[in-house]
């Protein structure tokens, strides 16, 4: 029973985090609107616009976030005739978990990986790469799909998708603004200083606000990739298949594969069963913020220990 209690607690936590995320996003956009409005005449006018934009965006992302994530990952929807075995395996896990049948997508990339997205179990979507179908056997595929179905059941998909789309786009905005203000922005202002005093000050304020908010967004991303979430999805997945070794084998194959998944990026990496950006820590400067991604070896050894218990 303790596993069930953990699961309900996690679902609650996911819904709470989703609420916090959307609130932070709306406040952020409203503040941004206020700053712009203040400079161009009326702060409250800008605030209203910022708030409205945030609200509309929030609703759009809630309903369409899954499609956005699938779109930027280059995933194509398939029917049963395209891949009968994959379809069957997903159907088996839907039966085992008592959830509705999710939509199935394939990413035409030979690097093996998989993720789930959507806003709730009735609108869930599971995407796997072609490489996963080629390199895993039926049992291993079943283990991976069970892991993804667990994310669906625990509402991880809603939070992870919103984080990906909202935080991902804001992070891009941050990058853009910081670069613009500190490099090109600074130089340009000296050349045509006539119109620029107020606008220049605004950009500086925005840069500072973004610098303050960046750690908060990083924290939200960190929550999305917490160890607990992945461990629980592994454990719940095994509850469905009763076959921990198959999932362990799948994780070994996926993490041992050297191919790079082209479609993955900073906004979507946390969705995948195994982080597809393998050299991410080496490449990014914000390493420590992302280093809580669960080490794959630990996940594998937990699964193997489970197998010995049985």
């Amino acid at each position, binding site marked *: *029973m303790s596993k*069930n209690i953990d699961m309900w607690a996690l679902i609650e936590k996911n819904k709470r985090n989703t609420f916090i995320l959307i609130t932070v996003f709306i406040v952020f956009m409203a503040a941004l609107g206020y700053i712009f409005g203040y400079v161009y005449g009326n702060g409250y006018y800008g605030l209203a616009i910022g708030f409205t934009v945030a609200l509309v965006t929030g609703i759009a992302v809630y309903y369409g976030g899954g499609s956005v994530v699938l779109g930027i990952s280059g995933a194509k929807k398939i029917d049963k005739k395209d891949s*009968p*075995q994959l379809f*069957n*395996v997903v*159907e*088996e*896990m839907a*039966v*085992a*978990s*008592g959830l509705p049948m999710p939509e199935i997508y394939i990413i035409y990339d030979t690097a093996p990986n998989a993720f789930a997205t959507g806003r709730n179990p009735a609108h869930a979507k599971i995407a796997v790469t072609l490489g996963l179908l080629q390199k895993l056997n039926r049992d291993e595929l079943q283990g991976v799909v069970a892991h993804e179905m667990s994310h669906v059941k625990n509402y991880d998909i809603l939070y992870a998708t919103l984080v990906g789309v909202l935080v991902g786009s804001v992070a891009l905005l941050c990058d853009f603004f910081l670069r613009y203000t500190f490099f090109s922005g600074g130089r340009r202002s000296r050349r045509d200083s006539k119109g620029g005093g107020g606008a220049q000050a605004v950009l500086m304020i925005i840069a500072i606000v973004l610098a303050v908010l960046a750690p908060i967004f990083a924290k939200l991303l960190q929550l999305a990739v917490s160890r607990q979430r992945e461990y629980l999805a592994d454990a719940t997945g095994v509850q*469905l298949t*009763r076959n921990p070794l198959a999932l362990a084998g799948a994780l070994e194959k996926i993490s041992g594969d050297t191919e790079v998944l082209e479609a993955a990026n900073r906004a979507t990496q946390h969705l995948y069963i195994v982080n597809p950006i393998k050299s991410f820590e080496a490449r990014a400067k914000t390493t420590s913020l992302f280093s809580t991604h669960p080490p794959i070896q630990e996940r594998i050894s937990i699964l193997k220990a489970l197998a010995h218990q049985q």
Partner: protein
Amino acid sequence: MALILIIFLVLLLVLVLMFIGIYNSLVKLRNRVKNAWSQIDVQLKRRYDLIPNLVETAKGYLKHEREVLENVTKARTQAIQADKGVAEQAKAENFLTQTLRSLFAVVENYPDLKANQNMLALQEELTSTENKISFARQHYNDSVMVFNTKIEMFPSNMVASMLNFKQQEFFEVESEEEKKPVNVKF
């Protein structure tokens, strides 16, 4: 005096709301159990539907093994007709599973049949259906466990006994043979 009355009314309201909440969750869980049970039937029916195709495909190749095919057909008919009780149904389904196993064992000796595209597709479908049957049973038992626990635990046990919610039965696996995981070898 008025204060006491208000406190009493608020307490009553809280109790009524709790009662409604517990009753609704009991109904929800009981429906989940019912739905899980009907899922098993859906998958069993799917297996019945697949078997005629399988027999048709194999017939051309297995001219000297007519008996095996006849057994499968017979077991299917028996399983469809056996709807008198859970025990008899389970026995008939077990028999069907066994005849299918021996059919697939025979297929091993016929490379042409084994390589037949139609046969391969049917084997994938049957493997998956066998899996779905056992997953559906597993899900049924999980749902029953959650429901039964709710009925036994305080305070939902009071609502349950008042409104006559009864413990649901687990699906028990009959024989030792059935306890082994279903494994159709290709």
